[in-house]
């Protein structure tokens, strides 16, 4: 044990340096793993249908959206069968919506942990955001089956897919950091989140294609980071259209901005969490 120098803990009335802050997160990666695992393990315990919920949720949304928006409203889907068109959008969207809700409430829900044990608090909203990835993976399997049914083969843009998932996680974590830290101080967040999710859905090209928006305004749509992601998800999975690099670029910049400011705000308020929660 005395092989390596003893770690020195310094406690002072100010924020930790960003480097020290992030390295503490790395040190506690085991906890991140276990908390994420706990979230996943617990989510469907003592439910009748268990993990089937991970399938039912997106499939149900797909069916409803296909009927109402695809059939009745006749929204164009760039020549792609509407069910797989909307499902490709629902994949990142469902993950994002669940992740920001879970992440936003996570700190307050873990108030006992926050007031009784020390670990980098970042672990809490981050693990809440990561937990949804399992559901995304399950939904992907369904999607693969759907693609086979419609005889769609993804093109080379599929290589972009892991990057897109990473971007979605970063986006959800960034928003989650903001919401969870704000929620500690202002419990209004709990009531605002459902509205936010609902409004955000309509501002994102989940049920409609980006092409529905007139080209001069498409860059405005790209300011919503989820629109760039969803559009690229479709391009990557369906291989029908080219990836809109400029849109994706703008979205990436916005995601980076949300994530970094979220991290800074979280760090700034972290020191009072235990006193407020």
């Amino acid at each position, binding site marked *: *044990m005395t092989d390596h120098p*003893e*770690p*020195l*803990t*310094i*406690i*002072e*009335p*100010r924020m930790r340096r960003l480097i020290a802050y992030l390295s503490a997160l790395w040190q*506690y990666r*085991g*906890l991140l*793993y*276990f*908390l994420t*695992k*706990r979230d996943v*393990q*617990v989510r469907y*315990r*003592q439910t009748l249908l268990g993990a089937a919920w991970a399938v039912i949720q997106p499939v149900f949304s797909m069916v409803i959206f296909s009927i109402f928006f695809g059939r009745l409203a006749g929204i164009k889907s760039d020549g792609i069968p509407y069910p797989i068109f909307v499902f490709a959008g629902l994949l990142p969207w469902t993950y994002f919506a669940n992740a920001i809700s879970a992440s936003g409430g996570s700190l307050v829900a873990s108030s*006992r*942990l*926050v*007031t*009784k*044990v*020390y*670990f980098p608090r970042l672990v809490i909203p981050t693990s809440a955001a990561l937990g949804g990835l399992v559901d995304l993976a399950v939904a992907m399997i369904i999607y693969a089956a759907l693609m086979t049914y419609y005889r769609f083969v993804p093109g080379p843009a599929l290589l972009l897919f892991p990057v897109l998932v990473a971007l979605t996680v970063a986006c959800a974590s960034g928003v989650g950091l903001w919401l969870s830290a*704000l929620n*500690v*101080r*202002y*419990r*209004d*967040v709990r009531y605002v989140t459902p509205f936010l999710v609902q409004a955000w859905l309509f501002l994102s090209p989940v049920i409609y294609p980006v092409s529905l928006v007139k080209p001069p305004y498409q860059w405005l749509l790209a300011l919503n980071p989820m629109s760039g992601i969803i559009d690229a998800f479709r391009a990557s999975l369906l291989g029908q259209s080219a990836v809109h690099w400029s849109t994706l670029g703008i979205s990436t910049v916005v995601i980076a901005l949300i994530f970094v400011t979220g991290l800074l705000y979280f760090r700034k308020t972290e*020191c*009072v969490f*235990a*006193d*407020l929660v």
Partner: protein
Amino acid sequence: MADTVIKVEGLSKQYRLGLDVPAGTLGEALASFVKSPLRPRRSASPDGDTLWALRAISFDVARGQTVGVIGRNGAGKSTLLKILSQITVPTEGRAEMRGRVGSLLEIGTGFHPELTGRENTYLYGAILGMDRASIRTRFDEIVAFAELERFIDTPVKKYSSGMYMRLAFAVAAHLDAQILLVDEVLAVGDSAFQRKCIGKMDDVARGGRTVLFVSHNMSAVSQLCSRCIVLGKGEVLYDGDARSAVSVYNQSVVGAAPSVERCASRSGSGGIRITRLWMTDEQGAETLFARSGGAVTIHLTAQADARFADGAAVAVAFALDAQDGRRLFTCISLWSGVELRTRGSELSARCELTDLPLLPDTYLLSASIIHHRECLDNLVHCGSLEVRSSEGDVLVRDEAIDYGLVSIPHTFAQEG
């Protein structure tokens, strides 16, 4: 060698009370921003609505020392531990700790009822800062210590509270830290397991690790710690050997009338709060003394909220402890088959203790109010009772001899 591993310099913590409670709503924040957009949001308010939980605390702890931190309710001991555990940030001052720090402010936080004992062991270990490999190598040892081999794959929601605590303590006790910050965790489980816990703590302390141990269990403190820091109103009242510390600590109760505010600790879910506590002698006059073999009556009044007003039945309990914290006696109104009810929002009760079988000494009084199995208010060491020798006794007492705890009525005679 004076090898300092914990160095605390001028640590202070200020809590803000009253008007500017920060956990407001967004609307309030926006309103205050609109009213005075240039005022810094977290400016220290000049007076009144702040409370210094700690004021310029300084001390050093050498490697391998086991230091007890004691103090009455609100003395700042929990705040100190929270700051050292990095749960909250000090307002002023600085602290340095060398070595891996493990803090146990409450054991079992983070357990998830739906998960099995095995899953929770890994999760809780990770929460306490252990890595997976070290939990895996200690897993069998932990389970054996908790005596839960048969139930380790059962969800902990099916555990009894004792089993739950045993597992939590077992994980915590196997924490690989050079500095341990411990808060009252020994108050768990049955007395056999408590002894095992204290034994384990003793091993830890002897194993060269540094322990900061916050407690109001005087017998545990004097058993485990060589040095003891007494805190009072956020300041260090005493820092030195544990024996003297215990008497400094007790002095704040001894000789003073029982007080709700100055109790060692207060807990309970609320609903009824004890407002006053006092003792009377056989003549009904208020007193702080009793004669060995004599009688004393303990009284309390309490204020109930709407839930318990107007005739709710509750039980009242009193207890006497020796100065080292050993419990000597407990009485609960329920045991005597007496039903106590609130009248309006008030509750008044008394309990007469007769033929006091106590040796002349000072004893600490605790009181609680219970409703079914819920503890509504619990005051630990909120007053003292000084027992004096009964008249006519020829008292020969030698400080060095342990005469025991009780005085059993007895008669000597010469036979034959």
